[in-house]
């Protein structure tokens, strides 16, 4: 490895020895590509003309109040329906650059699976998606979308049958297939170089948002707010604001049915440092180190580890991490639809929920930027079921 892959005490590359050459090859390809004008131009063109960047920064007309203005970074408008598209296009180009003919990926909510499937179709790469059987059930529409784009979707029946188990299966596949296969990991978690690479490919979110808010407000926001499962949309939003010390970086985890119990995905709030899926990071686990099963209404936040850079931001105090419960997220989801005519993903609704609390508590002029990381099409069936009681 050319780098140590660390963010403070966190990160690293904890994988079976046989995968190390594949990670070294990827690190080198990534670092080379970052310096390669042709690569950057091709990626830039794809983001502009295929994915639909830049995405707007929308000021809420009806949410917020006379003290607090809430802006939404509209990653929900990106092709594919979420921020995931930013980095899968980049990794797809890298896979081609490395001469790989096949890509594999894990998915939780299905957004990363959809993004990987569109990349596979676009670049002519054989595509296999591992998805927890429980998530296959609650995200049926996304499964069909992946299949429509030519991807093979493998339901994973081990463990809690969610995102964690899908990552395990993808890693197992990769230990046998790395010679012709790129593991297109979907977030800023996993072994080096994934956390660094995915952050860099998502940095565009915060870079655009920073310029856009300066244009709108003539000043930086008081806080940028994003949901955190693995943490890629949050790192993408935070990366260009880290040096702006007056801007609070707020990550919102899935508090599920309450962080006092066991049914949540609040890794940074309730976990402790450990090693999972290749990285030293915060992990939800028991006293012996067995990984906990998690719960969130949103499949994308249902994960017992978190990107190691978030662990570092938490311990260094630069980042703040809070939770939003299923109920709070659903309320924010419904309120956004009713007030602004925007149907967001359940994941993103966690971030919005916290922004609404901050706006309510604001005593002076406040500008908040929420990363609306995805749209809610995939959640329609579940929303209908969960909210039908409320509508009646």
């Amino acid at each position: 490895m050319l780098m140590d892959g660390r963010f403070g005490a966190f990160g690293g590359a904890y994988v079976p020895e046989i995968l190390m050459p594949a990670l070294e090859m990827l690190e080198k390809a990534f670092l080379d590509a970052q310096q390669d004008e042709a690569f950057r131009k091709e990626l830039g063109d794809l983001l502009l003309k295929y994915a639909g960047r830049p995405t707007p920064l929308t000021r809420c007309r009806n949410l917020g109040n006379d003290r607090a203005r809430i802006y939404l970074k509209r990653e929900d408008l990106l092709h594919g329906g979420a921020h995931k598209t930013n980095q899968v296009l980049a990794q797809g180009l890298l896979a081609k650059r490395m001469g790989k003919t096949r890509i594999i990926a894990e998915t939780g909510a299905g957004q990363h699976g959809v993004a990987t499937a569109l990349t596979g179709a676009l670049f002519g790469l054989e595509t296999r998606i591992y998805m927890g059987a429980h998530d296959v059930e609650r995200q049926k529409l996304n499964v069909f979308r992946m299949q429509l784009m030519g991807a093979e979707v493998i339901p994973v029946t081990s463990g809690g049958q969610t995102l964690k188990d899908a990552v395990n299966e993808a890693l197992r596949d990769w230990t046998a297939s790395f010679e012709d296969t790129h593991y297109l990991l979907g977030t800023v978690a996993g072994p080096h170089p994934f956390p660094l690479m995915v952050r860099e490919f998502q940095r565009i979110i915060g870079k655009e948002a920073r310029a856009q808010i300066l244009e709108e407000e003539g000043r930086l926001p008081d806080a940028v707010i994003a949901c955190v499962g693995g943490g890629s949309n949050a790192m993408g939003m935070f990366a260009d604001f880290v040096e702006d010390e007056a801007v609070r970086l707020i990550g919102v985890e899935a508090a599920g049915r309450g962080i006092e119990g066991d049914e949540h995905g609040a890794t940074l709030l309730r976990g402790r440092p450990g090693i999972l899926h290749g990285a030293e990071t915060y992990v939800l686990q028991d006293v012996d180190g067995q990984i906990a099963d998690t719960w969130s209404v949103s499949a994308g936040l249902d994960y017992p580890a978190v990107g190691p850079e978030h662990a570092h931001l938490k311990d260094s105090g630069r980042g703040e991490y809070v939770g939003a419960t299923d109920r709070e997220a659903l309320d924010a989801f419904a309120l956004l639809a009713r007030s602004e005519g925007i149907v967001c993903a359940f994941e993103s609704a966690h971030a919005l929920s916290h922004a609404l609390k901050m706006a309510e508590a604001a005593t002076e002029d406040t500008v908040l930027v929420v990363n609306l990381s995805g749209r809610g099409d995939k959640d329609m069936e579940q929303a209908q079921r969960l909210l039908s009681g409320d509508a009646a």
Partner: protein
Amino acid sequence: MNRYDAMFRRLGARNEGAFGAFVTLGDPDLATSSDILDALVEGGADMLEVGIPFSDPVADGPVIQAASVRALAKGVTPADCFALLTHFRSRHPDIPVGLLTYANIVVARGREAFYQAARSAGVDSVLVADVPVFEAAPYLAASRASAIAPVLIAAPNTPESTLRRLAAEGEGYTYCVARAGVTGADEEVRFGHSQLLGTLKAFGAPPPVFGFGISRPDHVAAALDAGAAGVISGSAIVRLIADNPGEEADAVRGFVADMKAATRR
């Protein structure tokens, strides 16, 4: 002399390869697991490799994953595994015992405390499946502090610079991955390892033992012909445990005897 050196010397004098048997501790339950360990020794295993059940064993295929699930369902903890091994050691003072586990199990207890507990339980070596040489330094230090041999993994694609460090830092034996992928019992195993073994030998690495996919006596013979000092068979034994409820010990005893016979030349 440590137990691995003594074993390789004894077997070398007889022109035999080492047969290592792997099982997951606490599978299907603690009492049966203890009987199974005894049966492995009775069947003729020269060394044991034992796994502490882990919820997310990414280096393992479905057979050994299922063993972890069974043991965890019975509530088996690392402390139970150390107690099981302590009793085993009191019955079998000479056979080398290696522990195979994952990094999170080690760091959850605290690295130093984990290696000390292993030492107290009579364990000779520890292999952490998801700690490559790149991350090994603190594990090597904790291992040495407790007089535990750190076993490192060499794969056919491992670069020479890593093999050189592995040769200098590893002890006991070198775990050679016989093929890409996770653990599992295959029909066909090929050993194209002459280059790897040559490099390991040139660097003075601990004796090479082949694992992954060793499930039949002809695999054992082929591995030894290719230059291995021994083999470890895991999934094939674990599958026998799953398939023979109530008669686990008898099933593995006979299998181990057949596999051991193939190490004699």
